[in-house]
């Protein structure tokens, strides 16, 4: 990442590209006729989100997004979809009419309004940390530690320690539940 990236056209182009990609594949998710295709589109959308994270300076989050979300959660999603028959075509997309149309309009106005209002405010929503690379050339000796990784790690274990522990406790409960469910099916199995 480069100190002057935010003002360069590459930045804007990257954000727009990733955004369009996320929106496009996101719409495939909700309109695909087979659940497996929807799952694949979701994988693609999550990759686009990871790209956005990376461009905005949260590179650790981008890596973690791909590793955990795509590599773990989506694999699980695909498993489940396969088990419940993901190849069959689902019902046709239903038309949006009546109350649904009203609700959809409200949602669009609210979200669109917040985007527009936020973009028009003078203060940037966040500050891009200057990148660790001192020189632009690739021949530089040391790139340095990823600031984002360091910051996320420090925050997780100091300021956000309690939510972190609570989340891990929740996961532990889920794991125990899964083991109990799996074992419960086969009562005669020894070991």
């Amino acid at each position, binding site marked *: 990442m480069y100190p002057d990236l935010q003002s360069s056209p*590459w930045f804007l182009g990257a954000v727009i590209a990733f955004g369009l990609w996320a929106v496009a594949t996101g719409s495939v998710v909700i309109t695909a006729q*087979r659940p*497996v*295709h929807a799952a*694949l589109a979701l*994988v693609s959308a999550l990759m686009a989100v990871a790209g956005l994270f990376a461009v905005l300076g949260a*590179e*650790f989050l*981008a*890596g*973690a*997004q*791909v*590793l955990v979300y*795509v*590599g*773990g959660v*989506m*694999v699980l999603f*695909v*498993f489940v979809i*396969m088990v419940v028959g*993901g*190849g069959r075509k689902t019902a046709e997309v239903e038309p949006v009419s009546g109350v649904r149309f009203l609700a959809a309009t409200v949602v669009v106005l609210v979200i669109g309004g917040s985007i527009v209002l936020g973009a028009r405010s003078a203060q940037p929503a966040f500050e891009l940390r200057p990148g*660790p690379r001192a020189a632009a*050339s*690739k*021949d*530089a*000796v*040391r*790139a*340095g*530690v*990823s*600031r*984002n*990784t360091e910051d996320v790690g420090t925050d997780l274990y100091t300021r956000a320690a309690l939510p972190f522990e609570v989340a891990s406790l929740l996961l532990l409960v889920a794991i125990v539940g899964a083991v109990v469910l799996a074992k419960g099916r086969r009562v005669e199995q020894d070991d």
Partner: protein
Amino acid sequence: MSGPIALHWAPQAASPPPPPPVVPSWSPVELIESIGVPHGFAEYVVWPAVQLALILFVVLTAVAYLTYLERKVAAFIQARLGPMRVGPVGLLQPLADGLKLLSKEDLVPAGADRFVYLAAPVLAVTAALGLLVLVPFGAAWGTVTDINIGLLFLLAVASIGVLGIVLAGWASNSKYALLGAMRSSAQLVSYEVALGLALVGPLLFARTLSMQEIVESQRFTGLWWVAVQPLAFVVYFIGSLAETNRAPFDLPESESELVAGFHVEYSGFRWSLFFMAEYANIIITSAIAATVFLGGWSMPGLETAVSWIAGTDATTPLYSTAFTLLSIGVFAGKVLVLVYVVMWVRWTLPRYRYDQLMDLGWRWLIPVSLANILISAFAFLVAMRPDQGGLLGLVEVTKNGLWMGWAGTAYFLLVNLATFAMAAWLLAKLNKTAWSTDLHALRRVEALRRAGRLATAEEARAE
């Protein structure tokens, strides 16, 4: 600057070496700019494209010749000669195989989901080849790019390959393929955990996720991280065998049982895409091992070798170009050694059954790597200088890397011995394995237990 224990051989006596001076080097980007390409375009588009093309060409040829190497290694281990007919010593065999595969009928099984069937091998290969941009083949321009979360990116993209396998098995509309795909993906996901945890150990010392920086940190400290983290290296190596579906963990694609598992319905070029993905994964996991544990492209004495070959010292562009080229050679050598060991293991050991495989991953490798992290981190903390938060002052975290004198090195080697012993003890306790090394007695007990002639395992141990 002295801690509660005054050690006169501690590094505070000798200061760490200054960072090496930046050597002027010939820049390929400047070369491209000199023919009229604008700066940004040259640096971010043209030169990476050239690098990518070169790397893809080299790696795809390497993958093809890895199949040849595998057949030769297998043959020599099995007291025979391997491919000998096509070209001298069979060297054109991969070409013949490639041509054959390209000329096969392109079929899609009846009832298969066409899109997913076609997309699955592409996904697998993309995940495998996409990792090539980050591998530090050599110094300076020997790598396509270097991002500061390099290792994390490698692990992340590698985990996408799992999706390719799952989808391939499902889309083939065959029971065998589905079973193979399920097993394979469960195996890959489990061993990814162990792999990641094993890599955390050397990261304590390297203190960065960037691939080039990991190599530089080993150069700076003068120590390959395998010396201070041998347990992590072993766990990583075993995990990489499982990640690439290689024996003894190749049950999902074992020929004698599931008849090739998840890619049983693929033929011709699509099948070779899976194969390419597998061998590319082997190269990449070996490359990661070489980088993180074995010092990457650096080698003690590399600088003197380069000055001797180039005829100049470290002040000319010729030197740095020669340095980069030689470093690529060193890296290739290390990766080749590791790949050879991977093949050697395949043709020596039998195959683990699926439940034994999962057992190994969850009950052995993950506790071992967790214990390794715990103990290494604690030892490291104790060894740090008091003004940096530690106790003994054997290790100094400087701006440019980790500095430790002889005392520090000896300390960490001793800690590793202790880690090994403790890990073994912990495992024995956790897994309720007897300490007995008498395998015959053990197996007699096990057989009787399974035959139901012994009521409980405790009774068995009493015998």
